[in-house]
Every structure is written in C-alpha cells, then in structure tokens.
C-alpha cells in the first residue's frame, strides 16, 4: 500500500485508505495461535460471534476456521467456547 509513496508530497492530503482493513495483515502480532478441535465442536458459533477482529470464518462442513492473516491471538474464542475445544498454542 505505502510502497508507491516516496515523499510526503505523494501522500493524499487527507489521511485515507483506499483499501479495506483486510489489506492490513495483523496476524504477525500473534503470540498464541488458536487451534480448534473440530471433533468436539458443536457449531454454536460463539467463537465467531465473540471474535473482536472478525477472524473466525465458517468454512467446510459449516465448521469454524481461523483467518490467520488477521487473528491476533487474543484468545477470546478459546475463553468463550462452551466445549473448550479451542486451544491456544505458543507460536514459535
């Protein structure tokens, strides 16, 4: 995004973004990575509802999946999961 800007003169006068915030990959901020055990998942989608970064998608077989490009590893999904089938694993 910023690559085409060389000096301050190249910037738009108004601080705007021309792309959505999806373009800003924030997955690198993560310390812990959520791992969903689909065998225990009851598809209640509480993880999807609580994720503050909209990083839970509903994927194959209507099971929740994590968008690792944007998930910051906050662990709210793991905390809220009623079946405790989301584990937070240290990124290495």
């Amino acid at each position, binding site marked *: 995004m*910023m690559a085409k*800007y060389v*000096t*301050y003169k190249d*910037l*738009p*006068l*108004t*601080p*705007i*973004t*021309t*792309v*959505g*915030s999806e373009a*800003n990959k924030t997955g690198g901020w993560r310390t812990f990575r959520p791992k969903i055990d689909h065998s225990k998942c009851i598809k209640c989608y509480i993880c999807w509802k609580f994720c503050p970064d909209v990083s839970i998608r509903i994927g194959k077989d209507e099971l929740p999946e994590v968008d690792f490009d944007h998930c910051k590893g906050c662990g709210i999904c793991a905390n809220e999961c009623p079946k405790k089938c989301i584990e937070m694993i240290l990124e290495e």
Partner: protein
Amino acid sequence: MVKKVITGNYSAAYGAKVARADVIAAYPITPQTQIVEKLASMVAEGELDATFINVESEHSAMTACISASQAGARSFTATSSHGLLLMHEMLIWAAGARTPVVMANINRANGPPWSVWADQGDSIAQRDTGWMQFYCESNQEVLDTMIQAYKIGEARDVMLPAMVVMDAFILSHTSEPVDIPDQEMVDGFLPKFDPEYRVAPETQPYGFGSLVMPDWYMEFRYKIAEAMDLTRERIRKVDKEFEETFGRSYGGLIEFYKCEDADAVLLLAGTVASTAKEVADEMRKKGKKVGVARLRSFRPFPYEEVRKLAAAVPAIGILDKSFTFGYGGAFACEVQGALYHCRDKPAIKNYIAGIGGRDLTPEVLEKIFNDALNLRKGKHAEIEWVGVRGLGGL
C-alpha cells in the same frame, strides 16, 4: 443587500445561512445559544436548506460536523468556553482529518471560578489543534469572516478548519447594523464545497482516520503544517477579493491603525481594538503618537507583518486577555518569538488585562498606552497584570 440591526450571535447565524451550511450540529451554551437557536429556527421555517442535528454534547457536535464534512457537506457549529474545551479531542481530529469545518466560538472565560464573561482563554487553549483562529472586532466582521473562513479552509490544498471568534456579550449580545450580502453575491464568491475525498456511494470506498505507522505519521503532520503556512497568503488574498466583491476589508491577518509614525503601538485582538483606536485618536490630539495593531489571525500567526511593525516602531505593548500559566500571555509569547531573529527589536511589554470580563475602559487603555510610551526610558517589567487589586502598578 439587506441591512439589519442584529447581534453578533445573529451575525454568525446569518453568516452560516448565506454560506449555505448543509449540516449544523450544536449544543447550547451561554453566550452562544442564540446562534443555534436562530439557525434551528431558519431550518424549521424552511429559510435554510440544511440538516440540523441535535446532539448531547459539544464533543458530539464536532464529531457530527467532521463526519458531515467527510461526506462532502459544508458544516457549521458554534460554542464557547467549556463547550470548546470539551471539544478539544475532536478539534484535533477535525484538523488531522482535513475537514474544513467552520465554528463560531464566543470568547468566554474558563471556570472555575465560574464566569460567563469575555476573555480569550478558551480559544487560546486550542492554539495547537490545527485550527485557524480569526478574532473579530464587529458584528459585520463576524458575518464576513464566516464566508471568508469557508473559502480559505475549503481550498483543496488547504482543507483546514477555522474558528471565528468574538467576545462574549460585547459582540455576541450587542446589536449593530450589519449588511447581509445578497445570496447570489455570496454564491459567486464562495464556490460549493468539493472535497477530493469523501464518503459517497458513487465513489470508491475510503477508510478515514485509520492507523498509520511511525514511518509515515510525520509526513501527514507536516502536510498540515505546510497547508497552515499556505493560509497566510490565502487570508490576505481572500481579504482583497472580499473587498472587491463586497466593499469591505479587514486588513488580512493583522490590521494596523495609525502605526506608521507611532512611538508606541498596542497589539491586541477582538473588540478591545475599537476602544483602543478611540483612545489612540484622543491621545494623538494631545500629541502622543500611538497606534493599534489588531491581530485578526492568531493561527496562522502573522509573523511577517509583526516583524514589519517591529522594524517601524520603538515600543510595542501586547495586551493579552488570557494567560498561559507559568509564563506569559499567548500573543506576547508569539510576538517575541517572531522577533528573536530580528536585529532591531522594539521595547516590548506584556499587559495581562480584561480577564474574565474585567472592563477595558478608555481610562485603562490610556494608562497602558502611556506606560508603553515610556518603555524605552528605563527598566520595566516584562509582564504586568493590569488592575489586579493589591498589585500596585497600572
């Protein structure tokens, strides 16, 4: 052209009307309330085609104005004192987002102790927000400056908000004859607001005010500094164009009254200028050559004009109706800062006066002028609070 006898508050309301404000969001506060009451009535009666947004605070009023501006609407609000202080966060946002909102601020002292009377402490406290600040001397100037403020701020290479400032009660609630210019003339002078980027269904989507990393934040702030510097020339130019169209000029950034041959000049802003000019006339009859420099624009600060003045006169008294605790008056700080690099500096003294609505009578001003005339003769205080009981002095 219609000539009406109206208050400063109504002048601001008529200013918003002839400037065709699209969105007005405001919260009432003494002594500003009449502005938004009048505008609400104009909208309700169908005299003004605008959206009036009732909000629960000044913070929200400014937020609504910023959002409206980002949608391409010309927006207006009015406030005073504590209302302005509550807006502080969003004032900085308005400038950073480059939304040319225009706001009337009625100069009123900050509490406590509680006060509703005039001083400049509220607007001076917003010096660093990135807003232009224009101080007015008459109701006519309030209306005219509103039109000018939109024209200056909305230029695509400026895009900065502006505050039109007037003294509580002395202008806000005092009636004077005011020319309300014909709508066609204002339309000819002030083009429609046409920002390059706006929230609009027909354009590509934009994200406003999102995060920028440290490697580019400074560049965005520099762009504000650059635009603000550009406004100096624009203010002078728009003042000239305004005179050509409407027949009235206010001197651009600063108005010089009988300064050319003066032995001492009093630099000040707002309505106290009218009294000071009268006093200067009277003193000149007695052979005392004094003049008045009326600061119209505090931001941007007219350092070039101030340097010219300093080169021409031996003494400058600076009258501040506000105080930045821990040093001095804001005008004095700026003037002295502007003169540091000049070789021949005049004698300078800062007079702190008229705080919290304390009357600045001709007698008080004559004392200050006489004191300023003596600055060259010996040692003097750098800063003096005028009329404080128990201090002695002026």
